[in-house]
């Protein structure tokens, strides 16, 4: 709770700083504030927090995910000074909106009341609608923003309908009451099924599960790269933990399990197959993110006791790799006059071998090659799926993971090809540091996963 207050106050303070001081102090102040918030979260690790009449509960899952999101947000903000140095935008608003969005993420990590689920989703999303349209003169950015807004509101309406139906059954928004109600429920109940289905649909939109994934590639491509990085990492973590908390209480009744299994199959298939034919790096990352959502949903489908730590490990390592790759993408994009196709990585190994090897490691981690964290993460998910008896779905997941390796290696191949015309990659020291940190963390967590699991 103290972390929530710190981040909210920090966001307002950053807005004021934007008026009264120059933009160089914004990122350091933001990162220091987040360090403080993380420290507060860490200090309350073992203390049960029952807040706002039991509407929020910072248990260990919530605390761990909140800390993970704060750490990833720090890495994203560390990319900020360099990214915004050559833009004419009002930078303070961008930082503040991302912080507000992070507050929504914390709410999603700790909600125990359906009202807080709704508020968390909205506090997470509304700043993102604005952020996606950050490039004011760009039609693509406005288009991405409007598409995200329309589809997001549409999904919210479904979520609310689900919440209302569940409220109609139990007479309370509290998840504990819902859990008791469902435990006592023997016969299938249509209203309950519809309620669960609508809430699942609303959350699946935020996670980007097929058939509700259409916004993802468009928004990822149209939004400014820094915002895309934030969306691909922190927002995915928040949406997944929100859904996890829901399924943790409701369990996996037969009707929900069938829908979930279909979602997993469709997400894995569409995400991986459409990623194969992408030529734009941001769209490729969007479809890769869809396919990773598929694996995360597979873990949720299994719904064992250890699913929380698996999800945290998976999303955290995925976020690390994604942050590093998007920074590398920005470096390569600048070197190639703003082009976004995969060929912009050509010549990186010849020009800067260290960065190219970092990129290789991060790509291999996303692909799930052994010795990287991505492998351990996928392995954990498959173990969970086997444990819960979803053998066929698991086998399909393994197949799709193999398809996934192809397009990551396709990008990795470009790193080592010679450039067609001479290009110069300029790596700012802070960016280099963040990329190196991400790479080291991904490799270290791959070799010693026990640190996080």
């Amino acid at each position: 709770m103290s972390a929530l207050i710190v981040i909210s106050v920090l966001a307002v303070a950053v807005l004021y700083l934007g008026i009264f001081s120059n933009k160089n102090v914004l990122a350091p102040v933001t990162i220091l504030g987040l360090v403080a918030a993380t420290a507060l979260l860490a200090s309350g690790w073992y203390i049960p927090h029952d807040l706002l009449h039991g509407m929020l509960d910072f248990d260990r899952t919530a605390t761990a995910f909140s800390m993970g999101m704060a750490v990833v947000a720090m890495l994203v903000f560390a990319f900020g000074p360099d990214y915004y140095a050559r833009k004419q935008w009002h930078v303070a608003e961008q930082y503040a909106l991302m912080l507000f969005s992070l507050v929504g993420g914390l709410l999603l990590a700790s909600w125990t009341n359906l009202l807080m689920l709704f508020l968390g989703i909205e506090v997470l999303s509304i700043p993102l609608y604005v952020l996606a349209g950050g490039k004011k003169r760009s039609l693509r950015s406005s288009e991405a923003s409007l598409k995200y807004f329309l589809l997001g509101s549409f999904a919210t309406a479904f979520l609310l309908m689900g919440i209302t139906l569940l409220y109609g059954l139990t007479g309370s928004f509290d998840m504990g009451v819902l859990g008791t109600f469902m435990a006592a429920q023997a016969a299938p109940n249509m209203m309950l099924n519809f309620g669960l289905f609508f809430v699942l649909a609303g959350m699946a939109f935020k996670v980007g599960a097929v058939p509700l994934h259409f916004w993802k590639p468009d928004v990822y491509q149209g939004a400014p790269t820094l915002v895309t990085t934030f969306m691909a990492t922190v927002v995915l973590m928040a949406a997944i933990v929100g859904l996890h908390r829901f399924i943790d209480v409701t369990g996996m009744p037969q009707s929900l399990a069938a829908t979930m299994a279909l979602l997993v199959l469709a997400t894995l298939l569409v995400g991986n197959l459409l990623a194969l034919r992408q030529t734009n790096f941001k769209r490729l990352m969007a479809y890769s993110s869809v396919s990773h959502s598929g694996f995360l949903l597979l873990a949720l489908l299994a719904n064992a006791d250890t699913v929380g730590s698996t999800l945290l490990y998976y999303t955290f390592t995925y976020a690390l790799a994604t942050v590093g790759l998007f920074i590398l993408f920005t470096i390569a994009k600048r070197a190639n006059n703003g082009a976004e196709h995969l060929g912009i990585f050509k010549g990186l190994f010849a020009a800067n071998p260290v960065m190219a090897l970092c990129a290789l490691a991060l790509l291999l981690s996303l692909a799930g090659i052994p010795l990287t964290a991505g492998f351990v993460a996928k392995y954990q998910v498959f173990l969970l799926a086997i444990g819960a008896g979803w053998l066929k779905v698991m086998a399909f997941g393994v197949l799709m993971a193999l398809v996934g390796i192809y397009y990551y290696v396709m990008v990795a191949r470009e790193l080592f090809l010679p450039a067609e015309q001479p290009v110069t990659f300029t790596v700012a020291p802070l960016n280099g540091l963040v990329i190196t940190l991400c790479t080291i963390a991904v490799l270290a967590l791959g070799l010693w996963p026990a640190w996080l699991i």
Partner: protein
Amino acid sequence: MDNVITAIRVVPLEHYFFLSFLLFSIGMAGALLRRNIIIVIMCLELMLNSVNLLLVALSAFHGDPGGQVMVFFIMLVAAAEVTVGLAILVQLKRNADGVDINQLNRLKW
């Protein structure tokens, strides 16, 4: 307050469900089919308000004020959302020309 709740309870709960689902479906159809973005935003509001209606009815039938509190939160968030949405629309209008949803075709596949 009590006579309001009694008045709500005069109508059977199924009727509220029926009306709410009807409004929700109209809103959904409009959001999916209409081409003018302002109308689409109106339809999204209609979907949210159908939920509000159902929440108030359920709250009265359960005798629990929580549902009505939720309605306030929904109205608040819907207001914030539509503010952002119209701002985005104004920005789009400046970059493109007009508010037809078919213009949103730069980003696909």
